[in-house]
């Protein structure tokens, strides 16, 4: 079987399977979850049983249910963040590349300023000021993350705008937006897709980190980062509770990276060989 005209190796298949499973759970989770996400059905950190396959959390909620609901929240927020961040980053990056001049200088320096401040600190300040509602969380991370996307998009755009087919479109009198959409975007899509996977992982981990610090997704909503924090004390008693959400985080991260590695390896091949492999 081929995807994007290429045959994925075994590792990529594993990654694809992990992503598919996670997406399936995120979409259909509430239909499968044995309990509701805020319902206490057992004791604090109950161990695995037939009733609760992965045991209970710190206030006796079913761990599996929380993980399933958490998938929806964590992946949903990370995905929304990455999509917004790419929309902003690509638009600005390509505009800077195509228009050049003061537009490029202005956006680039602004991005440099944001990049010079440590990401986590800046996010903590913004979330501290505006409060940590889900829309604020998504927008904050998206804007901060878009600076990285901007850098890549600008570099890709720079390489493409000097090509003669883009010049031909300019000579024709095409508008900037048309040039970005029709001439540049299709030819930059391959590196952008793999970057999307990587940035999704970063955002996903970042949200987990923010939740762990208490400024991410707020209770009673379940999310994997927050679940690790809530259950972290169980480690002291040699209990497995925080391991489950932590494992969910790492498995999804590894899965996405396996697919991205494959996508990057396609791009790394010389142009002539690409068609044959």
């Amino acid at each position, binding site marked *: 079987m081929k995807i994007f005209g290429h045959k994925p190796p075994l590792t990529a298949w594993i990654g694809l399977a992990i992503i598919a499973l996670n997406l399936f759970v995120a979409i259909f989770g509430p239909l499968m979850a044995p309990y509701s996400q805020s319902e206490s059905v057992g004791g604090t950190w109950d161990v695995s049983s037939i009733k609760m396959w992965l045991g209970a959390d710190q206030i006796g909620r079913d761990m599996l249910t929380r993980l399933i609901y958490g998938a929806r929240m964590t992946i949903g927020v990370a995905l929304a963040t990455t999509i917004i961040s790419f929309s902003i980053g690509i638009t600005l990056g390509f505009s800077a590349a195509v228009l050049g001049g003061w537009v490029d200088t202005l956006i680039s320096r602004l991005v440099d300023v944001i990049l010079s401040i440590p990401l986590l600190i800046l996010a903590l300040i913004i979330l501290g000021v505006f409060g940590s509602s889900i829309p604020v969380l998504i927008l904050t991370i998206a804007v901060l993350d878009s600076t990285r996307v901007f850098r890549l998009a600008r570099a890709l755009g720079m390489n493409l705008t000097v090509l003669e*087919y883009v010049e031909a479109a*300019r000579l*024709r*009198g095409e508008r900037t937006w048309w040039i970005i959409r029709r*001439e540049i975007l299709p030819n930059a899509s391959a590196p952008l897709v793999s970057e999307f996977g990587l940035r999704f992982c970063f955002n996903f981990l970042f949200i987990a980190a923010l939740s762990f610090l208490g400024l991410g997704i707020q209770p009673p909503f379940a999310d994997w980062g927050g679940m690790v924090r809530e259950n972290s004390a169980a480690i002291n008693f040699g209990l497995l509770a925080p391991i489950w959400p932590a494992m969910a985080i790492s498995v999804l991260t590894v899965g996405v990276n396996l697919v991205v590695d494959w996508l990057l390896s396609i791009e790394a091949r*010389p142009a002539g060989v690409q068609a044959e492999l």
Partner: protein
Amino acid sequence: MNDGKYVLRINNLRLEAAIGGAVIVDSIDLNLRAGEVLGLIGESGAGKSTIGLASMGYARAGVHIAGGSIEVDGVEVRALDADGRRNVRGRRIAYVAQSASAAFNPAHTIMDQVCEAPLIHGLMTRTEAQAWARHLFKSLDLPEPETFGARYPHQASGGQLQRAMAAMAMSCRPAILVLDEPTTALDVTTQIEVLILLKSLIREYKTAALYITHDLAVVAQVADRIKVLRHGKEVEEGLVDAVLQAPTQDYTSKLVAVRGAAAHERAVQSTVKSDTILKIEHVDASYGTFKVVSDVSLDVRRGETVAVVGESGSGKSTLARIVTGLLPPTAGTITFKGQALPKALKDRSKVLKRTIQLVYQIPDVALNPRHTLRETIGRPVSFYFGLGSAEVTRRTQELLELVELPQAFMTRRPSELSGGQKQRVCIARALAAKPDLIILDEPTSALDPLVAEEILKLLRRLQDELSLSYVLITHDLDVVHRIAHRTAVMLKGSLVAFGETDRIFQGPYHPYTEKLITAVPVMRSDWLDGVLAKRAAAHLGA
């Protein structure tokens, strides 16, 4: 040295694509005696470079040597392990690549790179290697041979680098040189110098050489024998004069004809008497503070072809950028159809943009690889004329027909086309705008001779049918002579001559025009020797 001994014997060579097994080169036999030069000639994709590299037991990524034997000095290269091959490469057989500027490492001096091979092979000490390198620089007529090696690649010109690369190849005194299009990337005036030096180098050291090129006239000057290749197979092989004068194969006859006397006939006869469409007066232009064009004036009439010739850096492409509005001139005026043409592209109306179109040199980068031909050719139609989808499709079909491409190509992308077909698409895209003036920036120089010939015919036909005006930017005097009504010769940003092509080519010439004209190789095996004799005579006379 024993002249009868073969230094390179290739038997029944076969190369295939590593995946899919498509045959790239098949049943090639090749024998090279010491001191002999064999010209490998053919169009792109004929397998010339592949054979050249295979003679060192090397195959590019995605290709592998599937069969046959390759003997260098009687040693089967294919049987050697990596160490054994390394011993042969550079030492017994060396390679000179086409683009010297891309083959040198910009971070090291030329001397370091030239001395690298003899040092690695342990053939010489550093002092010996450097002395030998200086000797080579001197015999290759490089400037200041004593200190030339201290330069970095960016401090040398293209022609100098190409010669330095020859020095690099000669550094281990190999028995065989593989010269892969060593003069193709150079200007005609530089090409002749490099050719002369390569020829004397090969003679002086009795080195055998494989000379790979697509230009029969060039190979005729240096080779003893010519092997004509097509689609990875041999078409014919013979002594240079035999092949040039009495080719036995159809394909070779065509190749000879395209560079031969017949091609020198003028396709355009009379001068065009019609109204002036473009008038450039006293135009200056610069990149930053660097002035590239100064005080250039010329005019183009309706239905006329004006050629602009000159070597690279002469400002001829800059002239194209000025007319299209990509580089606003710093002084002077441009009048188009009786009205002043705004200098910058953004000040020009949609109609003006439409009526001046540009066709690029390299069709591969002039077409968006992700667009189908329907999108590429149809876009100017819908953009300028606001037609509906059905109309655009109909017009695209017309345009494909006009440039002699099948209508089924509508859904193809550039990667599914050959070089000549891509250039036809570029021409169709320009025609889609219904222009009055088309600027052709070296439209045939990236194409094989036979394909270029077809494109020139097409351009001529389109000019007659649509009474188009062309500004033809080129370094190929053959092309100029055949299709240009008038010719402008540029040197270092200035116009040195402008007038009817016949007059420009008949003389009395400007000294530079003469230099340009006499530097074009003629398809005779004794042309280069003739030039040398003439030079020597002039030298004695002076």
